[in-house]
């Protein structure tokens, strides 16, 4: 019988990680803080797609469309009506969620692969529509610029330090919310659908409604990420919301491990930091990325940090490491 992990070590991982997250901005340069900001955005995007792909198992390769809706909702409402960006955070969430409800309702019953191609089509339709500048609102290929920085009363975020806290607090709220959903009958229903849709139906799960709900929640979070993106860059344009972005989010969920929150964070880190590390090899980095994707699927198709059921995740990982040292 192997020795159990000492109580202290079992309790450490989460507080330690939180401490590192809190201490980091005080020690880091603006450049690193900016990188951390985008790490945060990708984490949020990964979490948003995780609801649809990781929990329910729906192949969504058009998620960038929801991201774009949120970003543009923020951009347009802020530049046209001067609504503060921070108020637009929940507004973007709702806008993207509503959009998802409307467009996925007619197609939610489609079989996996068909749903996949339709989501690709939807993502492209959003991007193309934005480029075509309907009603003169979206600024065409150049996009919308002149977005305000997040300001509300005395709260003004215009430093990398401030942005860091903004994005990671939102991520924190999202993580808590998603974990609560995971540990409820809703989250379980999502997993039942993923595992076997027919068996889920005959166990009493309203499959259609739960799939729709997953899309709405996932889209909402992506929309919120879009708002955060717009509020940092102060400019939005269609080229940030291409099929490639959807693929990136898809990879984050796959790399990290479907349905796993720590996995998504790892996946987002890989996807954000990877290009940074490979900056010098600019043209080759995409080739490396493609190779990495294939190798990952060959050796760790379950993801780098797959969701472990029936126990806490970090604790299990530490237990395995602990046993190996003995």
């Amino acid at each position, binding site marked *: 019988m192997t020795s159990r992990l000492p109580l202290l070590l079992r309790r450490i991982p989460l507080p330690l990680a939180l401490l590192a997250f809190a201490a980091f901005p005080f020690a880091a340069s603006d450049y690193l803080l900016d990188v951390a900001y985008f790490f945060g955005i990708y984490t949020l995007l990964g979490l948003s797609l995780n609801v649809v792909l990781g929990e329910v198992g729906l192949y969504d390769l058009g998620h960038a469309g929801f991201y774009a809706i949120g970003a543009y909702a923020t951009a347009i409402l802020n530049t046209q009506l001067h609504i503060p960006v921070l108020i637009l955070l929940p507004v973007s969430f709702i806008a993207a969620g509503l959009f998802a409800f409307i467009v996925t309702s007619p197609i939610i019953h489609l079989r996996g692969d068909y749903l996949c191609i339709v989501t690709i089509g939807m993502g492209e339709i959003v991007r193309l529509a934005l480029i075509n500048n309907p009603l003169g609102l979206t600024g065409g290929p150049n996009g919308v610029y002149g977005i305000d920085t997040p300001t509300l009363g005395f709260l003004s975020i215009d430093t990398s330090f401030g942005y860091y806290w903004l994005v990671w607090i939102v991520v924190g709220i999202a993580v808590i919310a998603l974990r609560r959903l995971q540990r409820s009958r*809703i989250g379980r229903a999502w997993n039942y659908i993923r595992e076997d849709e027919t068996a889920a139906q005959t166990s009493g*799960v309203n499959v259609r409604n739960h799939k729709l709900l997953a899309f709405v929640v996932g889209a909402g979070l992506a929309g919120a990420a879009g708002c955060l993106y717009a509020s940092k860059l102060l400019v939005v344009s269609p080229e940030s919301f291409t099929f490639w972005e959807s693929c990136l989010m898809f990879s984050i969920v796959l790399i990290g491990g479907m349905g796993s929150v720590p996995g998504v964070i790892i996946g987002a880190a890989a996807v954000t930091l990877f290009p940074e590390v490979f900056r010098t090899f600019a043209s080759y980095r995409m080739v490396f990325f493609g190779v990495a994707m294939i190798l990952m699927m060959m050796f760790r198709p379950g993801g780098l940090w797959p969701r472990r059921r029936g126990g806490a995740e970090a604790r299990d990982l530490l237990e395995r490491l602990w046993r190996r040292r003995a």
Partner: protein
Amino acid sequence: MRSPSDSSRVESRRGDVVVQTAALTKVFGGLTAVDRLDFQVHRGEIAALIGPNGAGKTTVFNVVTGIYRPEAGSVLFQGRDITGWKAHRIVREGVARTFQNIRLFPNLTCLENVMAGMHCRTSAGVAAALLRTPKLLREEREIRAAAESRLAQVGLAGSADELARNIPYGRQRMLEVARALASGPHLLVLDEPSSGLNPRETEDLMSFIKAVIRDEHLTVLLIEHDMRVVMGISDWVTVMDGGRKIAEGPPARIYHDPVVIEAYLGGRK
């Protein structure tokens, strides 16, 4: 085995009708899988649906449980017309089923699998989940308790935290039954429950079914190929061939019915 004198008894079925189909018809492309089927199941019965392969038995189950919509005819459950209802709604009415090929949730734990049965008996929504309201916490406790009790009932209490795909086949079958029972159904629909089980496991399953019927006032409708099960526990047998009902009656009479024998052995189709 029933004694031969059974065949001379008046064939009567007690109890009200739990489920009945009227002229039920299901067509796939050019194939009429179920052809104007009329049959009934009475409360407290163990009713068996038998017939050669391709007779349409599983299709009947799929229509009754809401996976398919029939082209014509109707299904009544406890007096209510459930024709064309979606599967999850039918479950809430009180019908639960298992599948011929065992459809569990393989990467979830045994406990989580059984908890699925309680989904339709609880109603905490997104808001409740996010805010962790007292209602949600109470329902979670109930779901967990019910699932644990069902697991114990089928002898899987020790496997609660194991992944469903990792337990042996025979126990997977029982796990599926536990999940079905967790929704507190009035009617249990079992599609070839003994398929893949060894004789000992089949015996255990049969005793289990009889006990559950008695203790929980259930009704059971099953498809079976294993004649020991059909003869051993069923009260009434309906025989299908080519989508139609060709015979029905107590097991002993059916066993000797020449029409039934011919359907199984071949002859004119």
